[in-house]
């Protein structure tokens, strides 16, 4: 190593990852695997296909069933840097982290890593329900790459951090989920890797757990270690990282100081005015049987537009397909500001009468349409997210940044004063002035 390179802990050059279609994102929920019958069937069909095509060479036959989840990614990370990684669903964030943590191999390019990579995503990996807390600390530590002596040395610290002293010799299957998570996190947090990878930890656990995760991240960063932070939560990204890269459809779209990167991400990529269409590769396998098709915002005249008026009602239309019936389904929208703060959330079956009629939906093609009343939103840009779930049973699909639109306050109350108004809403308040 040249001494000038000593400060670079991660170097990525033209990195790419190709997946076979249908194999992407082995989430465990819905693993797709071949059976011998499939292979035999395709072998049997192959000669017929060859005859039909007259033995013409099909150079793309192999390529057709593959797609690049990640392509031509190059960047480097300095020691002690906290780098944010943002991008929409299917942009390749998880794939990138999987390659950097050696879970899967790249298909092209290379990456150079200086130091141990630890991940807060790995919390509880290899925990066995039948083993005691003590036994799982050692097992999990070894899986994460710690030496036995290292675990011995940190054991008391791990136990203190996890607050499960009295239950150390109880099988973890008898733990509450909070205890389980605390113990698992305690082991992962004491790995002390040179490079820490954090992927959406904020999505799991309670507020206390999330606070611990974020606290640990800032600790790690202050020790001069390197952190890669992947999140959909723009306010967390803005708070915790200095620099951020934006991934878009497997490519590196932008790299800049975090505020610029977040602005770029929020403003770009939503090319179609007032409309968002989902392509097959953007829909995770675990969404099935729910399949999002498109999301539109329409103005008072019913045109899908990017810019809407505050004083007119706004119609939100979410079009989707159910490949199989779903019971207890609710399809909803989130509205967020550009800084990632929620304005509101609403579901199509919030009305008990509608839930009665549409809670159980047979397979088919649907549109859920909602009308936001006039005089609701202040001027500015807003992010529309979608969610399809069965309450407390399963979340089928969620995209918190599905569509961006802007609101113009022309004609809104108070517009005679040319000043921006604070807050995301601009209701028409009924004022009454009395002289008493």
């Amino acid at each position, binding site marked *: 190593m040249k001494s000038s390179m000593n400060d670079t802990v991660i170097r990525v050059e033209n990195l790419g990852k190709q997946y076979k279609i249908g194999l992407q994102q082995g989430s465990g929920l819905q693993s797709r695997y071949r*059976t011998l019958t499939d292979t035999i069937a395709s072998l049997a069909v192959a000669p017929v296909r060859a005859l039909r095509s007259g033995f013409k060479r099909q150079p793309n036959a192999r390529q057709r069933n593959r797609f690049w989840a990640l392509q031509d990614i190059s960047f480097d990370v300095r020691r002690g840097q906290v780098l944010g990684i943002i991008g929409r669903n299917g942009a390749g964030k998880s794939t990138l982290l999987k390659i950097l943590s050696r879970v*899967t191999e790249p298909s092209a390019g290379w990456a150079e890593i200086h130091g141990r990579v630890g*991940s807060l995503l790995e919390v509880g990996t290899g925990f066995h329900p039948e083993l005691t807390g003590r036994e799982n600390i050692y097992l999990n530590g070894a899986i994460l790459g710690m030496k*036995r002596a290292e675990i011995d040395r940190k054991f008391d610290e791990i136990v203190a951090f996890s607050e499960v002293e009295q239950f150390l010799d109880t099988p973890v299957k008898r733990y509450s989920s909070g205890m389980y998570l605390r113990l698992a996190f305690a082991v992962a947090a004491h790995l002390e890797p040179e490079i820490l990878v954090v992927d959406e930890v904020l999505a799991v656990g309670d507020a206390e757990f999330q606070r611990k995760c974020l606290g640990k991240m800032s600790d790690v960063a202050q020790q001069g270690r390197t952190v890669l932070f992947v999140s959909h939560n723009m306010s967390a990204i803005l708070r915790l990282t200095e620099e951020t890269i934006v991934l878009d459809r497997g490519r590196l779209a932008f790299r800049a100081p975090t505020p610029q990167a977040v602005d770029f991400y929020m403003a770009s990529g939503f090319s179609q005015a007032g409309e968002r269409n989902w392509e097959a590769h953007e829909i995770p396998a675990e969404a099935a049987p729910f399949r999002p098709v498109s999301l539109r915002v329409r103005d008072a005249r019913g045109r899908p537009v990017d810019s809407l008026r505050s004083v007119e009602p706004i119609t939100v239309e979410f079009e989707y397909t159910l490949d199989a019936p779903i019971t207890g389904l609710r399809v909803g929208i989130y509205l967020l500001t550009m800084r990632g703060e929620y304005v509101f959330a609403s579901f199509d079956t919030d009305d008990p009468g509608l839930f009665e009629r549409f809670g159980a939906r047979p397979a088919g093609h649907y549109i859920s349409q909602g009308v936001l009343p006039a005089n609701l939103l202040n001027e500015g840009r807003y992010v529309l997210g979608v969610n399809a779930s069965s309450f407390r049973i399963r979340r089928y699909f969620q995209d918190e940044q599905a569509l961006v639109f802007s609101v113009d306050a022309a004609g809104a109350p108070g517009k005679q004063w040319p000043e921006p108004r604070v807050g995301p809403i601009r209701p028409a308040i009924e004022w009454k002035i009395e002289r008493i």
Partner: protein
Amino acid sequence: MAMNDPATASLKTPIPPPLILRPTRGLAALNLRDLWIYRELIYFMTWRDLKVRYKQTVLGASWAVLQPLLQTLVFTLLFNRAAGFAADTGIPYPIFSFAALLPWNMFAHALSTAGHSLVNNRSMLTKVYFPRLIIPMSPVLASLVDFLIAFGVLIGMMLFYHFDPAAGYNIHLTSALWTLPLFLLLALITTLGVSLWLSALNVIYRDVGHVIPFLTQIWFFITPVVYSSQAVSAKWQILYALNPMVGVVNGFRWALFGTRPAPGPMLFASTLVAFLILVSGLFYFRNMERTFADEI
């Protein structure tokens, strides 16, 4: 951590050399270095497999002994009187079959556990890096531990038959006893080789899970566990010896009791096949390893 004083800092694992991640093509390097670095994980995983297997059982690890004992009892009741099963060997049937059951059970147990090991540890494979070889290796090593426990019983049985005058048998330690570890090694090579093949195949074709019990059963019949390999007619002997477990079982009996057939040229065939299975298994496994996390 606030507790990072210089004393503990100096104890920290040194920063490993830079790691280059790039696509590997063809027969990927076996990367045995990583296996060495992660040797403690092999120990912990084996220990976990053993621990979990006997958790919440009344009899615990004594099952490692009880299982072959009960099998021997059944075989003795079924086959002791049947003609030709232990003919000409001159040793009591229980000990004749028990000595063969030890390596056989190691093989059969390892196959059924290792075959499913990658699929069962899916969450580990998709979340964290470690040499994947460890996953099918640890059930094989756990079966070896069971073997060693049950081996103690074999010694007890040999003493019993040695000192029991009424039995009329004469069991002495043979001078070939030193070769026993070599036959155990042959059994391990075979077991690991087949386990690697099955576990990797099972990731892609879940059919393998359904085939394993059937495969084990067929393999049991073509291995001289309940009968003597001399019962197999001469013209089939060469084909028969291609089964490495034949070499193992015959070797065990020969090394322990001096029973025929003594290892001959056939043993080379067995050994060669065992090595072929292991080496091809290693390469197949390494080759598939690149896509485990994507396909599982």
